[in-house]
């Protein structure tokens, strides 16, 4: 199975779409994180260093980190030097997370993880401002890792919610302002039902997106689920998380092609190749699609 994953190829566009949406989410996260990051420089605000060697937050550190982050995210969207841009975004996010434990959030963690994972592939191979780098196909194994990332996210977020506190519906009563529209006697049952349903949906999505028979239905449920969270649970800071998760969905609809094609993904630079044979096969496979 591992050999078939490593030896397969998929179309380059879905990964490029992820790159564009990830860059957009990164811009959003930088913007919403900056105020809290900056507040750490106030003497009355508590600092909780993530590590013993964490840097002290200063105004210069905050401004420089956010400025580099935003510039790199913009470059990532264009697809120029996509790997370097993704690594820079990941680095800026990691620096913020390493500065203070309070800055670590799940959407920051997902952003860093996806930035690192897309550097394993060729994120600039389509929809970029450098058409000379475009190819029709890219290696499947980085795409496989992106899919596993989404599934493990759904799996662990659902399993962690199987506890009395979550299943009581308390989180929905605290977070969903629209519930005030319900009669008092309905709030309890409705929030419990929402809590149980969310666990079932997330647990199902962890596996269903891999199954061709139910994939389309699962994607529809996932789309409604993420959009529902964004609409029902302000603030809009939750939106980048949904954007990044949904950006990964098209990957599940790609059929990897394994017909004798050796791996064309590489761990080197954007233009690097793994061996002459791979280079030749990539050229051949790219030609019919007219994107070479």
């Amino acid at each position, binding site marked *: 199975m591992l050999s078939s994953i490593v030896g397969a190829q998929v179309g380059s566009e879905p990964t490029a779409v992820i790159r564009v949406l990830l860059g957009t989410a990164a811009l959003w996260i930088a913007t919403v994180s900056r105020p809290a990051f900056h507040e750490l420089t106030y003497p009355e605000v*508590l600092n909780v260093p993530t590590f013993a060697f964490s840097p002290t937050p200063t105004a210069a550190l905050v401004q420089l980190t956010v400025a580099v982050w935003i510039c790199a995210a913009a470059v990532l969207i264009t697809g120029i030097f996509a790997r370097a841009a993704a690594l820079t975004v990941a680095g800026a996010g990691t620096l913020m997370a390493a500065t203070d434990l309070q800055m670590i959030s799940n959407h920051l963690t997902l952003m860093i993880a996806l930035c690192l994972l897309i550097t394993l592939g060729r994120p600039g191979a389509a929809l970029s401002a450098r058409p000379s780098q475009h190819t029709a196909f890219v290696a499947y*194994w980085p795409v496989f890792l992106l899919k596993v990332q989404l599934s493990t996210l759904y799996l662990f977020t659902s399993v962690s919610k199987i506890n009395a506190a979550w299943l009581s519906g308390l989180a929905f009563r605290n977070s969903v302002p629209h519930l005030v529209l319900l009669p008092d006697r309905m709030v309890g049952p409705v929030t419990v039902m929402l809590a149980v349903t969310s666990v079932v949906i997330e647990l199902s999505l962890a596996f269903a997106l891999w199954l061709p028979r139910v994939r389309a239905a699962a994607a529809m449920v996932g789309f409604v689920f993420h959009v529902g969270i964004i609409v029902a649970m302000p603030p809009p800071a939750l939106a980048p998380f949904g954007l990044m998760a949904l950006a990964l969905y098209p990957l599940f609809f790609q059929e990897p092609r394994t017909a004798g094609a050796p*791996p064309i993904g590489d761990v080197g630079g954007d233009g690097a190749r793994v061996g002459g044979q791979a280079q030749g096969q990539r050229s051949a496979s790219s030609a019919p699609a007219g994107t070479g």
Partner: protein
Amino acid sequence: VRIKVIVVVVVALQVGIPAMALLREDRPSPLGWQMYAWPSPPLEVLVLDADGDPLDRETSDYIGRYRLEVPYHQHLPAHVCEVEPEAHTVVLRGGRPGTSGQHRC
């Protein structure tokens, strides 16, 4: 072979890191994908002077971004005592389990 090793290591990290976070006692834990899993009442900070009178302070005066993953009871009382010369007692209410309590400066 090198790519196979990368795939195996990355999948092990993708599964192993949140699995270890799930097994920790101080939940929710960072890097565990435990969004909203353990809802708790909001954290309140009450700062009392030597006469037992509360100072006019808000929790947001001391916390820029509140995160349930952070053990505030280990850090916040000492910080408040340091930045508030009038503080005599710091009272924490709410937050994740184990956070509530009184601390003398």
